[in-house]
């Protein structure tokens, strides 16, 4: 219905202008052809508005690299869906179009309704450089059947780090190829995304990574690996593959985000649940990572108005990102429609609460370098090449050098 209304509004607008709509082709780069922006772009192209959007899918790991190269050589697309911590690198250097004024004039996009975290990630120097695609964060998935089999209560999943470690020990079962827990400590943005919440729960942050307590967070991760509670491949495996082992019954718990819900509902042959990330101790600080992408227009596009019309179309469809894509809307006042799967609907509650504790990575134009220092720190500790505090002190010093 909203789609229809929107289409007629757009038709009226172009009709009122009196000029026949010229055929315009825009390009959109994205990590996935099945992500909401890709699906909405196809719908937008199907609307008779003279605008066609061509979608190019680029692997998540290569998205920033390829885009930077394209910007440097002037071969960038008109539109992009980009991971939110990478947004500032482009916005701060003028690669993205400043859409502050169009947003202010728009009836469809209400930037004040966007939650603080996502809004900060797409704002640079007080100006708006995009819209949020959605938001996500990580929480703890657990296999209720394995909990019951190990004598744990599936209705009271671990709430503190100690309980988490105990549960992982109880659930690990090498005889049956079951690890207690799966997560990703990979040397990539995914690793940083997974590690920062633990550092933050212990009182640290990306610009205070050697805070007292962060070493404890690393000690917890190291215990998972050293005691064989998590696969050694945790160091080289991303979140998607780690969750795959959970879905296959080879890990009893996994730390991952709501984007997994659809696959888990169809792949996992057991009963599962989701709970908030355990805190350091009873009543401790909650934290989690703010994930997901933003949509932005490149400053050098020939068709800024048509590109902005697509952003407006996207925002008009934002109530669909939860039921169709299990992603959380970044805009206040959007109800999460029931999906018809009780487990997913229960997860919606957990992820919504977890998201309220989510913190931004950055925004900082040199985020990739900051992230790299954090990755180096946790990887060198987890592989036993450095002492935790030493590695964190060194990372903090280098991050200071990047920030200041």
């Amino acid at each position, binding site marked *: 219905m909203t789609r229809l209304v929107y289409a007629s509004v757009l038709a009226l607008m172009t009709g009122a202008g009196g000029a026949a709509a010229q055929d315009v082709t825009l390009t959109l780069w994205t990590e996935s052809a099945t992500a909401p922006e890709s699906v909405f772009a196809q719908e937008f192209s199907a609307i008779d508005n003279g605008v066609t959007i061509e979608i190019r899918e680029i692997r998540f790991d290569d998205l920033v690299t390829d885009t930077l190269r394209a910007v440097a050589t*002037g071969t960038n697309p008109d539109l992009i869906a980009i991971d939110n911590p990478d947004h500032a690198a482009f916005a701060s250097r003028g690669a993205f179009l400043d859409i502050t004024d169009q947003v202010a004039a728009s009836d469809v996009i209400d930037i004040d309704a966007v939650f603080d975290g996502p809004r900060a990630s797409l704002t640079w120097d007080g100006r708006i450089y995009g819209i949020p695609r959605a938001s996500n964060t990580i929480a703890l998935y657990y296999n209720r059947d394995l909990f019951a089999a190990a004598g744990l209560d599936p209705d009271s999943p671990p709430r503190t780090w100690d309980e988490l470690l105990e549960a992982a020990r109880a659930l690990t079962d090498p005889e049956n190829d079951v690890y207690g827990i799966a997560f990703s400590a990979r040397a990539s943005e995914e690793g940083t995304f997974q590690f920062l919440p633990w550092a933050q729960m212990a009182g640290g942050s990306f610009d205070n990574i050697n805070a007292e307590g962060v070493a404890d967070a690393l000690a917890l991760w190291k215990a998972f690996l050293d005691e064989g509670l998590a696969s050694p491949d945790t160091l*080289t495996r991303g979140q998607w593959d780690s969750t795959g082992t959970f879905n296959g019954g080879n890990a009893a718990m996994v730390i991952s985000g709501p984007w997994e819900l659809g696959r888990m509902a169809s792949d996992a042959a057991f009963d599962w649940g989701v709970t908030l990330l355990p805190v350091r101790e009873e009543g401790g600080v909650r934290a989690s990572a703010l994930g997901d992408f933003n949509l932005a227009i490149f400053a050098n596009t020939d068709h800024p108005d048509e590109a902005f019309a697509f952003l407006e179309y996207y925002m008009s469809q934002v109530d669909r990102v939860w039921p169709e894509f299990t992603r959380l809307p970044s805009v206040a006042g959007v109800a999460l429609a029931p999906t018809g799967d009780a487990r997913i609907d229960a997860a919606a509650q957990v992820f919504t609460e977890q998201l309220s504790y989510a913190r931004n990575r950055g925004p900082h134009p040199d985020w990739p370098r900051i992230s790299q220092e954090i990755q180096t720190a946790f990887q060198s500790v987890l*592989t036993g090449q450095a002492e935790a505090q030493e590695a964190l002190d060194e990372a903090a010093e280098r991050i200071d050098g990047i920030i200041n």
Partner: protein
Amino acid sequence: MTRILRSLRDGIGFDVMLVIIALSYLLVFAGLPLIYNVIISFQTVDVFSLGTLWHPNAGFDNYRAIFDDPLAGRVLWQTIVFTLGSVALQFTLGFALALFFHQNFTGATWIRGLFLAAWVMPGLVVGVLWNWLLSGDFGVINHLLESFGLIEDPVFWRSNVETSLYAVLIANIWYGTPFNMILLAVGLAAIPGDLYEAAELDGANAFQRFWTITLPMMRATIGAVLALGIIFTLQQFDLFAAITQGGPAGSSTVAQYWSWQLSFREFDFGRGAVISVLMIIVVLFVSLIYVRSTKAETQL
């Protein structure tokens, strides 16, 4: 005018023209990028100034940053291990296979040709295949080793700092051996058979024939194969990208991968260029060996 034209058709001018074509190709497609690479190694270049023609001068800062980097020593050592290990084993296995197929049993040429199938596969595909084979929990290699009773617990090839470099090394040996074999087989075929007959009549045994005929006659080929092997190994990138991404904790980072990481992950093109400049110096040196051995070949 006509004299120049005639000289172009059938005189010295034709030779000069050929040389000019080759040289200008080299200058435009190899020389200029090389020189540009040397230049940006002395400049501060980030991605947003990459497109501009001139960048701020950095003097030797990039070089100093590379040599001061705690990773530098390890990367150097890992590059040496990877390169020498790859070349030595690719060469030995390739030579053994070449000698084996030189026996000319039924189907030898066919099977030899099939070996090339490995070499024509794109590096990323080979990398993904080995990524699965070497996987820790469910890898085929661990399964085989366990069923032969060689190991008790699975080896986490890619995730263990002790083994990650060797995971890529094993894949690279598999990948490069057929190429060594083919080049060496060509060299073997070029040795006149009567030499062996004469030696056999004189009572030389197989080992003596190999040591005094095969090896000396193959000197030029061996030099070329080793030089190309070193150069190809220093270019090997796909396998690292697909198997370990240089990790964990930098334990499988080699110079070429580090250069890429600095340039395209950290967007510090100046420091990335420093490593390529240092690698070019090594490759130039190796190329000299290659040129010398091919020169010896033409003199035969």
